[in-house]
C-alpha cells in the first residue's frame, strides 16, 4: 500500500479532456496532504502525454488501446492499481470513466465514491463530497480500507493546476490484451447536416418542461428571432424530440455560449456540467425550487410558453 494517488486520464482524438487536468491538479493537492505522489495514467499511445503537472505519468502503449475500449482499458487499469496499490484512484465521472470506476470497485472489492464534487483529507483518510439524488442532496462519505476509487464530476476543480510538462514513462500493457471480447469497429460521427451547438454564441435550450415534440417549434421560433440555435437537455433528446447533436450535458456536448436561455430545464447535475461556463444564463421554470436557479444568473418562475410567446412579440 502507499499514499499515492492514481489519476486515470481520458483522451480522444489526441487530446485530453479538461477533467483529466482537473483531476491531476486535485490529486497533487491530495497527495501532498497524504504524503504520497500523484501519478497520471494515460491509457493508449496515440496522445502526447507530457502535459500534466503530476509527479509522474505512466503511458500504457498497446495497439489494442489505440481507441477507447472499455474492456481493455478496464483490464489495464485493474493491473496498474493492483501493482501500485495506491491510496486513491481518481476517475472522471464521465462517459468513459463511468464504464470502469464501478467495475473496478466490484472487481477489487474496494470502495467507490461516485458523483464526487470534492475530496478532502481528514485524519489520514479521505472524505468525499458527492452529489446525490439528481443534485437534491449532497452526501459526505468516507471510504473504508486501503484503496478507494473516487469518480469526480467534470468541472469540479480548476484545470490549470493539473497542467504541466511531466515526462511520461511509456510502458507496455501490464496485462495480456489478446482475446478481448470487445472489439472497436469504428467511430460514429454525429449525423451530418446539423448545426454544431458548441460553435454557437446563443442557445435556447429546452428541457422536459417543453412537454412534447410539438412544442419544439415554439423554441425554434424564439431561437430564430434571437439568432440562436435550439439545444436541449437529455430527456428531450432521449424522447426523440430533438437529435442527439443538440444535447448539452455530460452525455452530450459542453457549451460556452454568450447566452444560454433555458426553457423548462430544472438543472440536473449532468446538464449543469455541460453549460455552466456560459456567460449569461437565464432560466425559466415553473418550479421555484428548481436547482437551475442556483446556477443561472437570472431566473423566473413562470410558464415557459407564455414567456416565449411574449418574447416573440417583443423581439
Amino acid at each position: 500500500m502507499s499514499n499515492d494517488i492514481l489519476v486515470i486520464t481520458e483522451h480522444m482524438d489526441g487530446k485530453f479532456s479538461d477533467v483529466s487536468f482537473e483531476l491531476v491538479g486535485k490529486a497533487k493537492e491530495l497527495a501532498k496532504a497524504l504524503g504520497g505522489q500523484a501519478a497520471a495514467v494515460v491509457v493508449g499511445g496515440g496522445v502526447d502525454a507530457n502535459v500534466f503537472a503530476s509527479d509522474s505519468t505512466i503511458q500504457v502503449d498497446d495497439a489494442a488501446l489505440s481507441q477507447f475500449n472499455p474492456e481493455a482499458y478496464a483490464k489495464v487499469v485493474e493491473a496498474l492499481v493492483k501493482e501500485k496499490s495506491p491510496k486513491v484512484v481518481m476517475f472522471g465521472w464521465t462517459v468513459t470513466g463511468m464504464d470502469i470506476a464501478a467495475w473496478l470497485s466490484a472487481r477489487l472489492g474496494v470502495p467507490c465514491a461516485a458523483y464526487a464534487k470534492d475530496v478532502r483529507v481528514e485524519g489520514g483518510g479521505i472524505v468525499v463530497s458527492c452529489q446525490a439524488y439528481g443534485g437534491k442532496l449532497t452526501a459526505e462519505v468516507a471510504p473504508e480500507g486501503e484503496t478507494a476509487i473516487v469518480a469526480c464530476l467534470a468541472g469540479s476543480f480548476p484545470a490549470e493546476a493539473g497542467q504541466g510538462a511531466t515526462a511520461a514513462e511509456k510502458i507496455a500493457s501490464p496485462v495480456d490484451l489478446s482475446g478481448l471480447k470487445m472489439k472497436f469497429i469504428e467511430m460514429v460521427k454525429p449525423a451530418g447536416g446539423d448545426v454544431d451547438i458548441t460553435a454557437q454564441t446563443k442557445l435556447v435550450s429546452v428541457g422536459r418542461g417543453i412537454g412534447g415534440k410539438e412544442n419544439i417549434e415554439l423554441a425554434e421560433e424564439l431561437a430564430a428571432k434571437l439568432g440562436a440555435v435550439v439545444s436541449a437537455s437529455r430527456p428531450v433528446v432521449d424522447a426523440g424530440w430533438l437529435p442527439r447533436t443538440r444535447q448539452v450535458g455530460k452525455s452530450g456536448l459542453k457549451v460556452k455560449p454568450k447566452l444560454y436561455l433555458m426553457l423548462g430545464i430544472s438543472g440536473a447535475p449532468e446538464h449543469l456540467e455541460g453549460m455552466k461556463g456560459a456567460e449569461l444564463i437565464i432560466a425559466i421554470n415553473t418550479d421555484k425550487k428548481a436547482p437551475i436557479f442556483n446556477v443561472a444568473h437570472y431566473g423566473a418562475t413562470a410558464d415557459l410558453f407564455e414567456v416565449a410567446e411574449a418574447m416573440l412579440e417583443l423581439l
Partner: protein
Amino acid sequence: MNIVVAIKHIPSIADDVPVKGNNVDFDSVDFVLNEWDEHSIEQAVLIKEAVGGTVTVIGVDLIGELDNALHLALAKGADKVVKITADDPAADSHMQAKWLSEAIKGMGANMVFAGVQASNDLDGQIGPMIAAYLDMPYIGGVSSVEANSDSATVNKEFAGGAGAKYSVSMPFVAGVQAAPKPPRYAPVSKVRQMAQSATVEKVAPSGDASSGLTFKKMAPPVVTGHAEMIEGSSKEVAAKIVELLKSKGLA
C-alpha cells in the same frame, strides 16, 4: 436471445428528498423505477421483437413495492419477471449488484442490460458491478444494441451524437443510455392484466457485498449562488428578459 434486464427501484426525486440521520428518510419517500431502466427495458424488447428470444426483468425489491414496475415491464413485452426480496431500502449498489449477479448467474443470459446510471448511484452503478461479479465485459453509454448470433453490435455514445461501434461477444453487460426509440407506453389495462395473471418469481437475496462507504452527512446542497429572480407576469418577465438581452447586445 436471452436478455436479462437488471432494474433499480430508487427514491423519487420529483420532490425534495427527505433526510433522516445520515441517509435518505426512506419511509417518507416514494420509490420509482430508475428512468434509464425504462430505456434498457425498451432496448431489450426491441431486440426480442427483431430476433426473438426472451426478456427477463429482475430487480431488488427494497420496500415491497417493486411489483408494479415488474408488471409494467411485462406489459411492455418482458416475458419473465423476478424480484429479489430484500426489504432493505438502504441497500447500496454493491449490495444490489451482488444479489442480482447471484440471481442472474444461473439464467444463461446472452446479454444483461442495466440503466447506464441512477440518481442514487453514490457508490457506482449496478451494471459494471454485475459485469465484474459475473466476469463479463461491460460497456456503458449504450444507445443501440443489435444482436447477431453470438455477438452484438453495440453503439456507445461519447458526446453530442458522436460515438463508437463495438462488436461484443456474448455474454456481456451493457449500460443503456437510451433505447433507439423512446420507451413505449404500456396501457394500464395491460399492466393490470399482468398484475392479475402473471407471476413474479421471488428469489431470496444471496451473497454479500458492501460499498465500503461510511456516510458522514447527507443534506441538501449548500447553495452558493442564486439567480436574480425576475418577478411579475409572464409578459413582464418576457419584457425584462428582452430588455436585458438588448442591453447586452444579445438581441
